[in-house]
């Protein structure tokens, strides 16, 4: 019984040590600087200045450039860049040419493979890489514009 108790205690200590290693944040200086900077600025200017919550304004700017660089009735697959909190994942949204239709979750591999809506362009917002086989047309503020295969 005593040996079992010691094994259990050792396992508990091991578990905590391994887990504790993962809780410290990375990039502490940048986070600290962002914290100090944000404490004196209201949300609207923070968004406009490009903080983590700047999706609204920067996204609008990006969309304006996508519209300006594509034909009026082009069908565009909009790709939102990797989620900063889960670096490996991508969020994908589908928009028709006017970008006002309701977004719908789709997956670029499937859309480009089947291409039921005859996608003309792929617009990548926020960094990362265009899907495989999609050549880049030009960089635009906030992202990249590619030509669908």
């Amino acid at each position: 019984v005593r040996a079992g108790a010691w094994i259990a205690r050792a396992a508990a200590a091991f578990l905590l040590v391994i887990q504790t290693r993962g809780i410290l944040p990375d990039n502490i200086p940048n986070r600290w600087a962002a914290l100090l900077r944000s404490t004196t600025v209201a949300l609207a200017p923070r968004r406009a200045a490009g903080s983590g919550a700047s999706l609204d304004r920067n996204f609008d700017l990006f969309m304006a450039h996508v519209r300006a660089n594509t034909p009026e009735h082009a069908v565009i697959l909009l790709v939102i860049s990797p989620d900063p909190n889960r670096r490996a994942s991508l969020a994908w949204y589908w928009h028709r040419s006017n970008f006002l239709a309701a977004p719908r979750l789709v997956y670029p591999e499937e859309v480009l493979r089947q291409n039921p809506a005859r996608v003309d362009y792929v617009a990548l917002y926020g960094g990362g890489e265009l899907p495989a086989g999609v050549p880049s047309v030009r960089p635009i503020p906030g992202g990249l514009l590619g030509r669908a295969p």
Partner: protein
Amino acid sequence: MTGASAAWPLLALRVLGGEAWAFWWGCAVWRRARSNKERNLADWGYGYLLAGFLRGGLLLALSALGIRWRLWILVAAESTIFLAARPWRPAGKASPREGHAPLPAVEWALIGVISLAALSVTFQTLCEPLRAYDFLAIWGLKARTMFLEGGLTHTLLTAPALDFSHREYPLGWPLKLAGASLFAGEWDEQALGILPLANFLACLLLVLGTVRRLTGNRSCALFSAAFSATLAPLWTSAFSGMADAPLAAAIFASVSLLDEHLNGMGEAAAAGCLVAIPGWTKTEGLIAVAYVIAAALWKRRERLDREVGLFCLLAAVPAVLWALRVQLSGLRLHRDLASGLPDDLLARAGETLRFLATRVVWPSLPLLMAGLILVVPAFWRKRFPREAVFYAIWAAAVSGAIAMSRLPLTFHLPSALPRLLSLPLPLLGVPMAETLAPKKKKGPAVAGP
């Protein structure tokens, strides 16, 4: 955008004030409802969760009555509940506290780990706005819509801009965000970081109190809390603003409530509300609700009375009412599930199992072994290990749901499954503590910390 004018720390203080008020009156209601008057830290967690649930119910009731949300109306309604709980009356005879024995070094170390985790999580949460896409496109978007519109209006169910927001998802978390924004007076994703933080702390209180009550051992309670506080995959994803933090706390509350005895209609009603919270927070929470209802019915199968009926009814009502509301709305919904089985179900099941084996189990094999050494002995040493059984059911259900959906696995397996599997992990801290705890001597129960 609301034309925000105040710096976020001021708004965060207002949110904090709103949550402190909810904590205060929620604890008063829970203390009044409970027939067992022993002091326990878990009651603070239960009280906070109960207040959040009731606040959401009040906001929905205001919308149903056509009343635009106002802070003073909400505070007045909550004050009425608070006064109805008669907080000035003594809540019963509290059990005597233990003497303040000096803490041994191991307990100081565990407190250090918990403090470090709490500081780290607080720092990470507050230094940037909540910004996960699911927050911006689903949870936060719904909350912001309700806040700006002053209630649950037709917009939430019909506006094209919210088409991706999964209208059928439960409203518990968006209602909490919107309610906190009423206290802030503005919508601010950084100030709202207070909410997942509060749920994180509530979960730790629940773990501390529950394990202390079950084992009567302070060191074991601190170990379980440290284990829960350092679950990085859970807490770092939770603080991106999604419903994970409240769901983790709610799952722990509802499953651990199975140990409570329902000794009166007031307690059964309050406990039923607490059990309802996971299903009202996220769709996956329905697994916890169904499990607890089934376990409660099984446990009381010899004596099914009105208390059990009330408990089960209240636990199921929010999710059932919301499902009916969504079904009757006639909307075309973007469902993740219930859209028919995929043709390649077997291949998808194989891929899911392969992902579990190679990306979840194998990389964390040492942790898994350590966990098994701590969990397995509790199977036969103490009592029926409902936490481990629940975790197995949960893991099978969420993995099976993803395999049976039509969602592309290359995206959903890495992005969703590890996060979902981490949500009920604080529960496993209970059997771990029971393995570590010295066997109880027969005698009166020890009071909580």
